[in-house]
Structure formats: structure tokens, C-alpha cells
């Protein structure tokens, strides 16, 4: 590094005197300085070695496109990339502060192997070869003794996971999973059932590149949205759908009304025309009341009551059955409040909102077009019955005619660019393997060994990581499919960029599972932790590997824009310390396994096929954009409709394509990393609307919007639930989640059930109402999930009453992640009072006063199951009484790799200490992060 050459060295003694003694002493220093190198010379040298690199962020899952400035090999500033319409040149505090994530004393620097017990955090530095040798030996032994299905590769919270999937699928395990499993699976359920999609978002990403009547392509900046309803969704802070920050405020200034439904005044709610502080866990109750109101009050002949746009019948199937099942509840009385189900009065009792407010909300949504009804992760995804809200939310957008209209709602999963393809290693899952079950040899494919899909969670299509502790402790027994009756233990857990000990359901349960022993041996015999920061799960690892930070590696964006768009994550700076990229690790471990004689790892699949990192990602790019060519205005009028498009925007534009009529695809010149580099890192294909027309981008069996999910189509049983129901019928046994609901299989159409741990809606829990008067929910802070708490800058910014400088004064003995793991530096650091943000418990002022509490008081929260956590209360007006909101991943953090957040672990609350460890949401197995009640005791 040559930066030192530019050091301005002068009057050290005098200036420091000025610092110490104040201004008067410094007067003497005036004008005595000189510069070692002239500033002009320094600047000239610097600019000679300054570059701007385009890449993709990973400070949060929004993965904004970035322009990173690099000076003499050091990343200096991070800005948004204006050429990517997703973030369109902007970046948030997290994005800008990536510098401190990359350059941080708490990075994992070298491979390490555990020397103490799991959890003690004692490691020794080893060479990469030693670490990989250790891992490969264990993997070979486990595969030999138990089969490769006893190994889990959890690629965690960061999406550039393909090399790990590729390697472990090749090795033979069906268990390659990622963050989606613990994110918000119930929230995604409705769009998945009904569209084959995932995330419904408002059409507010601007600009969008649109084909004009004159044939040109132009950037459209218009906002057509008239209404957005955000329920349990806080895009301004949880920036996954990053364009909703600027898009929402721009739409509002262009005339849209914004309604936010949230127990707390989120940052999104601050910009709303109306904030509806709903009781936690009652979003489905509100949604069904809105649907009932719309169905009951719709009138085709009254322009002020014409809520439904019947054209949806043209591109959907099953509505009559759905509607009939929905209406079948209308005359039933709710045992909780004696009112008829789904009426606004019924919903008012449950949600804590006024009946008139609910009716007005329903009317406003029905009459205002274009509009979008959008629901979020914490609000819907974290509850046992979030599925119902997700299904109804999807239906509301469809029947009011808002899907895919300009200014309406878009399922972003259906329209984002495809990627991955063969680089995901999906073909390896179709290989046949043989297992002996009850003395009989059974041969079937690798993916039929999946612990969820053929075990406890047949519809857990995003995997069920929250339930892993149970499988670690008790093993897997397959109940469905060809391997029915096969049992196997989980013997290896490879976790990369994830931290399930804090985020993967109940913290104590995870610790129990990772430390359980059979004799002297840990039950899960191998735990490997791969990441850039050192988080709690790393404390339980046998081997820790340093993964290169996002500025030191290559891969592709994984984003949810309104149309096809992809960008490159590229090498920005040199790899630091001894870190390796995912590709490096894949190849190095593959070579080890090959040397040890594993028959499934073949050179022609690895180093011969992908000699360089770029080759690997170019393979993944062959699938881009990979969507049906659909909608209006048609993106490429010269290309056939409803064919899948592949290739660069310019090759498709120029018509340099091969048209495959049989395969219904158009192939231009494949997008490559080099092509992206030459185009500011970004490929943008044109936007269109009405993309459900003639099937378009829909991914259901019927190529229509499905209101039923197990149906007959041309003599074949189709629909998203059909294949699971077939398995259940063959086995004659329903999975545990359905048994909890009293169901024998997945319903054909609309269903309703109550959430858990809610004394206000579920009679089973009414008894807890008085003794445990607070519902607990979580909220986001500027830190993304649990992995950025060591970033000093973010520790100094308050967020939503959850992350505030309420620290007491402390002198702490500093810890950093040294070559042997967590290491005291011997330095004492003083952290003055009220200078550092800590996670707190957000509580309504009136509730606090009733308990005799003041802001800053330390309290203990305890659940009926006896789980506890403690933290300081923050008494505010910004939350519904009876509700406590805690930061997700923002407290009780006991990894020494977390800087000052670690130093305050004893007075900050871990919301996941409170989660019910044994129940998971019944269909997809999501942890019940948002369903719990507590009592509060002053400490």
C-alpha cells in the first residue's frame, strides 16, 4: 500500500497539545506546519490508481447494484449504481457502511479448527489444506456410514450460493438449503399456490425501460399507482425490495394513498396517510374481512361499489369453489366472540381496529385502481397462520383487477431474471441411489431422500431449517415416496453466511442440538462454519473457514425487480488475509474428496468444466433472462410471444438469435461476466405489463391463476398441493403439521385456521391473557439480520425505537477475532454512557407507566414456557399497547466477533430466546417468531 507516501506529517506535538488542552494552547501551533508530499502530488498519484468497480451489495438481501470507488487497492466509498434501475443510483446506510464490514478486526482471517468444547470459542489456526483434509475425511466417513443424506449444506443468508449447492449435490446430499427457509415462508405461500410465484409488490420501481409506440426503448418515470396497502411490511427499514423506499414516496407525491397496517409506527408508517396499529397475528382476520366486505358489497351497476373486475375469470380457474368455501364460513359463529366469521365486526374484535375503519379500508381498496395490496415478512411470515393472509392477499389483488396492470401489483418472482441453471447442480439430484430399507433394496433418486419433502414437511418447498434442531437430536424418518421407512441421522451441518443459533428459531434449542453428545462424540459429528464475520454459530463449529467478503468475490445478483434485470458481483479488491471465494472452496474441497476416492466427484464436473471462477458464473448466466416473452407493450415485437428468451439485451434487440419452435425458446448471445463488465455491470431487459395474458409468466400447471390447488386437468391430477396429497394418500398418513390442524391432507382451496399463542383469537390460549399480557413481535434495525453488528457506523444510528443509545458506561476488555479465534487484546476501551446504540424493548408509554417503569429500566420477559430474555425498555408512543417489539438479531449477542454489540449482550434482548421451540407453522415449518406472549418483570 502506497497511501503512507501521502501522509501529511507536521507539528505533531503542538497539535496534540491543542487537542488535549483546548484552543488557547493550540494558538502557538499556528503556521508552523509543512507537508511531506505536496497535496497536488498526492492527489495525482491517487487518481492514477483510482477506479470505480460495479458490483452487488450483500449488506442486506436487497443486493443493490453498487459503484465502489477503489483508491490504491483500498475500497474507499460505496455508492449506488445509476445504471441498475433496481436502486437506480442510491444506497442506504448499510450499503455505504460496507467498508467497515470488509475492513474489520473481527473478520475471520484464517482457517481454524476447534480445540475446546463447542461453544467455548477456542480454536487454533490451521492451513487450508489441514482444514479441508479434516472436513473431507469426516464427510467421506459420514457418507460411508450413513449416506450423503446425513449431510446438510446450509448456504445461509447470502444468495451467491451456487458453488456450494453444486459441490454438495454432486457429493450426493439432497439437503442444500438457504435463508429462505427461515425468512417468511408463510408470506410467500399464496403467490406460490396461485401464480407459481413468491412476492407481490407494487409497481413502483422506476425507471422502467419500456418499448414505445415508435419502436424505441425509453426509460419511463411515471407513477400510476393510486393506492398501496402495506400490511406487516416495512420496506423502508427492511430494504429487501429496495425500490419501495423512493417508489412509495414518489407514488404518494404523485397522488397515491398509502395505508400501513402495523402494530408499530415503522419508518414506512411515517409516510402513510393512514397508520392502522393492528393487534399482532391478526392480519389474516383483517384480510378475510376485507374480502368478505368486497364480495358482499360489490355491485356491477354502481360505479361507487364496482370493486371486482370480472375479467380475472378469463385468466384464472377455480374461483367458484374458492368463493363457495370462503362463504361457507359466513354463517358460522366464532366461539371467541360469538360473531359471524369474517364480518367487519368480527374482525374488529380480533384486530383491535374499528369496524368502520375496516369497512373503509375494504371500500377504499375495492374502489381505488390501480392499487396494490402488499403483505410482509414479519407481519405475515412470522405467524402460524400467515398462509391464510398470503392467500387472501393474493386473491384481493386478482379479483380487483390489480395484478399486472400499470401501477398495480406484480409478482416479482415471476418476472425477475432467471440464473443458475446447470451451475446449481440440480442434475445431480436426479442420480439414482440404493438404500436398504427393512432388508429390501430400494433404488430411487437422490432428491427422494429429502428429509422435509419425504418426511415431516412435504410442502416445505423452501426447506425447514427452523426444525433442524429436532432432526439433529432425533434423526430423520422418511414417511413418503420410494424411500418410505428409511431412517438416517444428521451427522454434518455445514453453515455458510448464516447464523441459525440466533435466527433459526429458538436459540437454546439450537445450542442443545449442536452440543448434544452420544458418549464423548457430538451427535452432529461435523459442524463447519464458513463466513466473513464470526457470529454465534461459529462458536459451535469444529472448523471455521474464512470466506472472501462480497468485495473480494464474484457471483450474480439475486433480486426482485419489476422486470428482468441482472447484475454482476465482481472482484473489487484483492482477497484479504487467507480468505477464499465460494468457487475456490468448492474446487479445493472437490479435489480433496476426489483424491480420497469419492466416486461422485469427477474432474470433468469441476476443475475441468470450470477452470476459472468466471467460467462457473458464465454457466449460471446462460439462463438469463429465461422468462416468457409476454405482456404489453411487448418487449421485442420482432420475437415470438410466450417463447422463453435467453441472451443479452442487445443480441435480442438486434435479432441475433436462434428460434427454437419446438422448445419454444429464443436464444441470443449468452450474457457473460465480461459483457456485464462492459455495460456498467448490468443487463436490463424491457418491462411490460399484462404478463399473465395467455399464460405468460404464470408458472401454475393450468397456466392460469389457480384458486384450487389439487384439481383435474385433462385427466391428470394437477395443482401445487396435488403431488403432496398423492404421497400422503399412498402412505395413508398425514404429516404432523396437518395433524395439528386435524387435516388428513392439503386442502383443495380456501382454508382457515387460528394462529398459536394468541390469547385474543385462539381459545386454547385465552387462559394466558391476564398473566402474560404482552404479545412479542420483532422489527428490523439498520443492521441486516444478525451479520453486520460489528459495523461501527451502524451502531451509531438509531432505528425505529428499537436500536437506541441507551447503553450505560462501560470499560470493556476488547476482543477481536485473531488467528486463533476470539482473542482478548489486553486493551481496555471505555464506552461512555448513551453513545452506542443497543437493542431495546419497545413498549407503549402507558403500559410502562402502569408497571412503574421508565425508559432505560432493565426488565425480564418470560413466556408461559419459561423462556426468558432481558433488556432495557424504551417507552414510546409509537407502538400499540399490549405489544412489545424487539429487534431481530439485535440483542443477547454472545459472539465476541460483534464488537460493541457483544459488550452489551447482558442487557439486550434476544427475541429468539422466546420462540416456541417445538411448534412450527403447519405447512412449511416456519418458526413462529411472531407468536408469543410474555410477562414483564423489572430486574
Amino acid at each position, binding site marked *: *500500500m502506497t*497511501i*503512507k507516501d*501521502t*501522509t501529511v*506529517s*507536521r507539528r505533531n*506535538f503542538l*497539535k*496534540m497539545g491543542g487537542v488535549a488542552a*483546548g484552543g488557547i494552547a*493550540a*494558538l502557538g*501551533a*499556528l*503556521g508552523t506546519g509543512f507537508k511531506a508530499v*505536496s*497535496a*497536488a502530488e498526492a*492527489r495525482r498519484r*491517487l487518481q492514477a490508481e483510482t477506479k470505480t468497480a460495479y458490483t452487488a451489495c450483500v449488506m442486506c438481501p436487497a443486493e443493490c447494484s453498487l459503484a465502489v470507488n477503489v*483508491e490504491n487497492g483500498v*475500497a474507499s*466509498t460505496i*455508492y449506488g449504481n*445509476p445504471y441498475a434501475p433496481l436502486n*437506480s*443510483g442510491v*444506497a*442506504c446506510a448499510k450499503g*455505504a457502511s460496507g*467498508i*467497515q464490514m470488509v*475492513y474489520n*478486526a*473481527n473478520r475471520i482471517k484464517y482457517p481454524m479448527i476447534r480445540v475446546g468444547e463447542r461453544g467455548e470459542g477456542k480454536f487454533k489456526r490451521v492451513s487450508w489444506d489441514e482444514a479441508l483434509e479434516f472436513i473431507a475425511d469426516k464427510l467421506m466417513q459420514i457418507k460411508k456410514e450413513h449416506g450423503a443424506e446425513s449431510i446438510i449444506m446450509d448456504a445461509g443468508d447470502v444468495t451467491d450460493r451456487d458453488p456450494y449447492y453444486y459441490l454438495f449435490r454432486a457429493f450426493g446430499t439432497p439437503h442444500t438449503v438457504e435463508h429462505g427457509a427461515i425468512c417468511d415462508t408463510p408470506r410467500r405461500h399464496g403467490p406460490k399456490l396461485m401464480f407459481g410465484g413468491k412476492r407481490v409488490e407494487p409497481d413502483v420501481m422506476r*425507471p422502467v425501460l*419500456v418499448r414505445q409506440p415508435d419502436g424505441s426503448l425509453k*426509460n*419511463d*418515470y*411515471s407513477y400510476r399507482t393510486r393506492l398501496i396497502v402495506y400490511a406487516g411490511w416495512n420496506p*423502508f427499514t427492511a430494504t429487501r425490495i429496495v425500490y419501495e*423506499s*423512493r417508489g412509495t*414516496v*414518489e407514488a404518494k*407525491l404523485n397522488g397515491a394513498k398509502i395505508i400501513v397496517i402495523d402494530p408499530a409506527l415503522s419508518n414506512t408508517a411515517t*409516510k402513510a396517510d393512514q397508520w392502522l396499529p393492528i393487534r399482532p397475528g391478526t392480519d389474516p382476520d383483517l384480510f378475510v374481512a376485507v374480502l368478505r366486505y368486497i364480495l358482499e358489497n360489490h355491485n356491477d351497476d354502481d360505479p361507487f361499489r364496482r370493486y371486482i373486475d370480472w375479467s380475472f375469470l378469463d385468466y384464472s380457474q377455480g374461483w367458484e369453489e374458492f368463493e363457495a368455501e370462503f362463504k361457507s364460513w359466513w354463517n358460522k359463529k366464532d366461539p371467541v366472540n360469538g360473531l359471524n366469521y369474517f364480518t367487519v365486526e368480527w374482525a374488529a374484535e380480533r384486530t383491535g381496529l374499528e369496524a368502520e375503519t375496516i369497512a373503509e379500508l375494504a371500500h377504499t381498496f375495492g374502489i381505488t385502481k390501480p392499487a396494490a395490496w402488499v403483505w410482509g415478512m414479519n407481519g405475515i411470515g412470522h405467524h402460524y397462520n400467515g398462509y391464510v393472509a398470503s392467500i387472501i392477499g393474493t386473491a384481493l389483488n386478482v379479483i380487483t383487477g390489480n395484478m399486472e396492470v400499470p401501477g398495480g401489483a406484480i409478482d416479482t418472482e415471476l418476472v425477475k431474471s432467471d440464473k443458475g441453471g446447470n451451475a446449481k447442480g440440480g442434475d445431480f439430484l436426479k442420480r439414482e441411489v440404493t438404500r436398504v430399507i427393512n432388508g429390501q433394496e430400494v433404488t430411487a433418486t437422490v432428491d427422494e431422500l429429502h428429509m422435509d419433502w419425504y418426511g415431516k414437511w412435504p410442502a416445505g418447498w423452501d426447506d425447514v431449517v427452523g426444525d433442524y434442531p429436532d432432526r439433529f437430536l432425533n434423526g430423520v424418518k422418511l414417511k413418503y415416496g420410494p424411500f418410505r421407512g428409511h431412517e438416517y441421522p444428521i451427522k454434518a451441518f455445514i453453515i455458510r453466511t448464516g447464523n441459525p443459533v440466533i435466527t433459526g428459531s429458538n436459540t437454546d434449542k439450537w445450542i442443545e442440538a449442536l452440543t448434544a453428545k452420544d458418549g464423548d462424540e457430538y451427535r452432529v459429528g461435523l459442524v463447519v462454519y464458513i463466513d466473513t464475520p464470526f457470529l454465534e454459530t461459529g462458536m459451535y463449529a469444529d472448523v471455521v473457514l474464512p470466506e472472501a467478503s462480497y468485495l473480494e468475490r464474484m457471483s450474480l445478483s439475486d433480486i426482485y425487480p419489476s422486470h428482468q434485470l441482472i447484475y454482476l458481483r465482481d472482484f473489487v479488491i484483492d482477497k484479504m488475509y487467507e480468505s477464499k471465494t465460494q468457487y475456490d472452496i468448492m474446487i479445493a474441497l472437490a479435489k480433496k474428496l476426489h483424491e480420497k476416492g469419492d466416486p461422485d466427484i469427477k474432474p470433468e464436473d469441476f476443475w475441468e468444466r470450470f477452470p476459472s471462477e468466471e467460467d462457473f458464473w458464465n454457466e449460471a448466466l446462460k439462463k438469463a433472462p429465461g422468462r416468457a416473452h409476454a405482456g404489453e407493450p411487448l418487449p421485442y415485437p420482432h420475437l415470438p410471444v410466450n417463447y422463453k428468451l435467453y441472451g443479452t439485451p442487445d443480441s435480442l434487440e438486434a435479432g441475433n438469435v436462434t428460434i427454437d419452435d419446438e422448445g419454444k425458446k429464443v436464444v441470443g448471445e449468452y450474457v457473460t461476466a465480461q459483457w456485464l463488465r462492459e455495460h456498467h455491470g448490468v443487463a436490463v431487459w424491457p418491462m411490460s405489463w399484462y404478463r399473465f395474458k395467455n399464460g405468460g409468466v404464470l408458472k401454475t400447471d393450468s397456466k392460469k391463476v389457480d384458486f384450487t390447488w389439487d384439481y383435474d386437468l385433462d385427466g391428470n391430477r394437477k395443482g401445487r398441493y396435488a403431488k403432496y396429497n398423492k404421497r400422503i394418500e399412498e402412505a395413508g398418513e398425514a404429516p404432523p403439521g396437518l395433524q395439528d390442524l386435524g387435516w388428513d391432507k392439503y386442502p383443495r382451496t380456501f382454508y382457515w385456521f387460528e394462529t398459536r399463542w394468541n390469547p385474543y383469537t385462539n381459545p386454547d390460549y385465552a387462559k394466558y391473557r391476564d398473566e402474560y399480557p404482552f404479545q412479542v413481535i420483532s422489527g428490523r434495525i439498520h443492521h441486516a439480520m444478525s451479520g453486520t453488528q*460489528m459495523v461501527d*457506523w451502524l451502531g*451509531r*444510528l*438509531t432505528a425505529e425505537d428499537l436500536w437506541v443509545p441507551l447503553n450505560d458506561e462501560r470499560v470493556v476488555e476488547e476482543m*477481536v477475532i485473531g488467528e486463533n479465534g476470539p482473542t482478548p487484546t489486553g*486493551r481496555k476501551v471505555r464506552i461512555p454512557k448513551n453513545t452506542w446504540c443497543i437493542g431495546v424493548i419497545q413498549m407503549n408509554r402507558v403500559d410502562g407507566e402502569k408497571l412503574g417503569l421508565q425508559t432505560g429500566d432493565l426488565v425480564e420477559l418470560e413466556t408461559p414456557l419459561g423462556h426468558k430474555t432481558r433488556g432495557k425498555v424504551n417507552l*414510546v*408512543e409509537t407502538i*400499540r399497547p399490549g405489544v412489545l417489539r424487539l429487534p431481530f438479531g439485535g440483542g443477547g449477542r454472545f459472539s465476541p466477533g460483534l*464488537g460493541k454489540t457483544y459488550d452489551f449482550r447482558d442487557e439486550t434482548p434476544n427475541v429468539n430466546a422466546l420462540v416456541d421451540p417445538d411448534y412450527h407453522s403447519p405447512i412449511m415449518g416456519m418458526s413462529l417468531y411472531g407468536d408469543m406472549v410474555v410477562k414483564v418483570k423489572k430486574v
Partner: protein
Amino acid sequence: MTPDKSSETGLLQTEESRRSFLGKFAGGVFAGLVAPAVAGQVEPAAAAPPSAPAGQLTPVIDLPEAVEGEHPQKRMMEDLRRALQKPVDQRKWAMVIDLRKCVGCNGCTIACITENKLPPGIAYRPVMTETHGTYPHVARRFVPRPCMQCDNPPCVDVCPVHATWKRADGIVAIDYDKCIGCRYCITACPYSARSFDAGYFYSDFEGGERQPYELLPSPEYGEDRVRAEGGSPIGNARKCTFCLHRIERGELPACTLTCMGRATYFGDMSDPKSLVAELIGQPNVMRLKEELGTDPKVFYLT
């Protein structure tokens, strides 16, 4: 004090001003203390050099042709280029912050810290949160607070050594080599927009070894100073400069560029075609502490 020290245009003006001030300073070190009003004078426009050739400016972003609106970053970069064609004293830099659009992400705060290489405890552009009302009638808004670049800057008058002054383009600058760290200006600023660099490093709290980003030179005033013990800007007063070093390259200030809600606008308010001139003319415009007569160049839309 070599004239080639700074790159182009306005930064040279800094030099000129400094030279003049030095002359004044030599004339009577204590005179400034007795008659502080002298220090408040703006340097004559004659000191303004001609503009830099456009070729040295960062190119405007090259986006597809727009319909129904335009990319504000592109528009503002074009505004900047027009302003930079004019002599420095004919530019009047102004910032407009639309509070209706600020989403409270604090992106500006951090982007500014990284751009200007600020130490722990200093943020040139914090975002203040104001909450009013009683549940359920609660309102909250976010108010970013850069330096107001006052036309009548109270901080300038109190400086005993004339280390801070208002440039011809309206930006209030500090000469770190002259600043003695007395902090009078910090007290005088009614917006708390000035901070004292007490010499801390982030790594002081994390292992003690300097991280590479802490050793990068700060581009402030085009001087590229590396913060090191004993050297300026440690021991100096520091403040927002509207990213003078960026705007004179034709780039937007860090806060304006990064703003998630697109709430921040920047440009030459003396140019009627500029976006900021357009916004300042709106009926919902206000400024902070207008009654003090500071005449801030930061305008808020409410």
C-alpha cells in the same frame, strides 16, 4: 501555498482567499479578536478564476432517453456542468431537502462519513428524528441536517484566526492549517453543524491497528490529507462543505447521490433552469431558524 495545489476552479479560490486572509492576519493577529466583523467579509469576486474546461469533469450518467420524467441524478449533473462553466462567484450552491421523501435510512450520514473520511463521533449530516403526538395519533419525520452554508455565517465572525470564511460560491470553508481548534465556531453555529476532530480512530475501539480505510486521504478542499496523529484535520473544527471536491468535478455531493428516498437535491440556485431553483420556488419551502437572519442555503420542502 503553491497555486497548483488544488485541482480546478473553486478550490483555487480557496487558495486565493487563504492568501488574502494570511495578509490580513499578518497585519494584526489580535485585530481580528477586537473587531471580528472584519473576518466576516466575503472575498472580492476578482479572486475568482475562470472555469475548468468541461473535459475534466466527470461525464453525466448515460441513461436511455426518458419519457414522463427524468432521472434526477442526470438532471442535477447537467445542472452542475452548467454552473461549472460560470466563474465561481456567479455560482450559488444550494441544497433542497424534501422532508416528505426522507425515509430515515441514514444513507446520507454514512455516505458522507465515508466520502469525507470522518472519525468516530463526527457526522456532517446527521438525520434527526422528530416524533410528535400521543398514541395512536403519532407523527414522525426525519430531518437531515447538513451545514446550512449560511449567507451570514455566525461561525465565521467568531474565528479568532480567520481560518474559516465564506467562499464566493457561498460555501463556508475551513483552512485546517490555520485552524487552532479553539472551537468558538462550534459554539457559535446555531445548527450544531460543526464538530471538533478529537483525534480518534475507529480502530481505537477495535484492536488498535489502523484499518486501510482509515489511512485513506480525505478529499476535503482538494487537499487529500491523511488523518494521522498530530496532523490536521485532527485538532481542527470540521464541517460539511457540500462535498466541494466532488461538485467541482461535476459530481453530486455524497448525500445527494446516495439518498434512498431521492429527498435531497443540489445545484446552483442562481441558475433559473436548475432543479434546485425550481424547487426553492415552491410554496412549501422553509428554512431552519430563519429568524436568526443567517440566510441558510439549505431549503426544506415540507
